[in-house]
């Protein structure tokens, strides 16, 4: 069977004049199609490094990375360009890839309408709330039609309530557009409520400490908000909490 993402024995070290830090040591990871994977782990364990390797922003020191499909990266901050209006911010990826055509514009128009940003398309980023900006950043990533979304703590800049609502929105967007996603987060409940699988990393050098398949009993369609009400939620939370707690 083919995976969307496969990392085989990946090693990553960073060198400075005074020392060498090994961040990843024989790291292995697989992602099936149609799934959302959450990665949780202690701060500095190498989560961002994994995403940077998958996006080719850095080249691993060793090992093999296989990716079937195109990647879209969504960062912790929205990184909207203040001098461009919302539409122009969204099209920047397409401009760079020289794929800005009518078809792409129609797709963007549809996404803007679905996610309540259509009236704001001519506004500038500073006129938008944090949650709206984050949705704009997601649409900017989706506009280039990636197959796999990488999300690096995309909600951490938001207050708690907005965070719940935006993660709900973004979950819907990912599922509606039939994407795979890898979500890096510090928030255990966020990981359980959004992901199909949760991967717990060990301290540096990072290795996969444990994988959990999240199976929740939910009436009707799953959303991150109603996932939190599932009876199994608390058990997963306790289990993951313990996994992370062991280090201190």
């Amino acid at each position, binding site marked *: 069977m083919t995976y969307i993402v496969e990392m085989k024995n990946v090693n990553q070290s960073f060198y400075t004049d005074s020392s060498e830090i090994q961040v990843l040591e024989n790291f292995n990871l697989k992602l099936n199609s149609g799934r959302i994977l959450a990665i949780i782990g202690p701060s500095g364990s190498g989560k961002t490094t994994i995403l940077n390797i998958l*996006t080719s*922003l850095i080249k691993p020191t060793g090992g093999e990375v296989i990716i079937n499909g195109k*990647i*879209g*990266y969504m*960062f912790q*901050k929205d*990184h909207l*360009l*203040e*001098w*461009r209006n919302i539409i122009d911010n969204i099209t*920047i*990826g397409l*401009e*760079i*890839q020289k794929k800005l055509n009518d078809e792409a514009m129609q797709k963007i128009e549809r996404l803007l309408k679905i996610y309540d940003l259509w009236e704001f398309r001519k506004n*500038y980023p500073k006129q938008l709330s944090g949650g709206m900006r984050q949705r704009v950043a997601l649409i900017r990533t989706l506009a*280039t039609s990636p197959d796999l979304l990488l999300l690096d703590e995309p909600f951490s800049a938001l207050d708690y309530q907005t965070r719940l609502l935006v993660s709900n929105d973004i979950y819907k967007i990912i599922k509606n557009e039939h994407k795979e996603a890898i979500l890096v987060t510090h928030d255990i409940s966020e990981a359980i409520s959004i992901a199909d699988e949760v991967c717990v990393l060990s301290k540096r050098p990072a290795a996969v400490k444990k994988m959990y398949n999240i199976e929740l009993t939910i009436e009707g369609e799953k959303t991150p908000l109603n996932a939190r009400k599932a009876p199994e939620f608390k058990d997963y939370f306790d289990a993951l909490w313990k996994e992370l707690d062991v280090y201190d």
Partner: protein
Amino acid sequence: MTNTEKSEGYKQYLWQKKKKYTILFWQMFLTVGFIGIWELLARYEIVNTFLVSSPSQIYKLFISYVADGSLFKHVGISVWETILGFTLGTLLGIIIAIFLWWSETLAKILDPVLVVLNALPKTALAPILIVWAGAGIQGIVVTAITISIVTTILSAYNYFIHVDEDKIKMLKSFGASKMQILTKLILPANVANIINIVKINIGLSWVGVIVGEFLVSRYGIGYLIVYGGQVFRLDLVMMGVAVLAICAFIMYSIVNVIEKYISQKE
């Protein structure tokens, strides 16, 4: 219900507005007062008019220079040299800054040269530059460029390398080339900074032009000033300085209007 009673905040606002006029009034009052007292002191020969001239004398001189058209020739040449100086200085400086941003190695190699040039008072180079470039407009413009280009390079380069690293990463995640990072991020992110550089360069360029004209020219405001000094016509010197101040102020205001227009568009 109509709100006849003014709120505290609104009163405050009106008061602020009034204060603006008070400030303007005092500015006018001081200017008029200064010129008036100067004129009176000169007229009753309490001060030596040979040394300080008098406003009416300067004005008469100004009118005569306007009447025979020579003022426009002098102003025209100086303004033209200044415009050439700061546009070329800014453009070349920014282009060089782009090269430095493009190649970190180049930036490191040139770093000591730039630091030394920056510390050096560039006016000291004027005599050499004028000999090299020719004792006409070229020499003066080259002097003006030299004075503005070094600070332009250093400050523009500094602005360029301090653009948010993460925004570069964002563009790279879409596969952006270095050229695209330059045109879609580095330059647009620094429009306001570049306007500031232009403002500074107008001043620096005037320094270059005046120094250049002191040295070689037979025309221009700098020539008027230095000529007036040589023949002890201090009214001519003072008129030259006043005209210079007005020209610099007008140029600065034009850039301010452009700046307002750009920031409004954003």
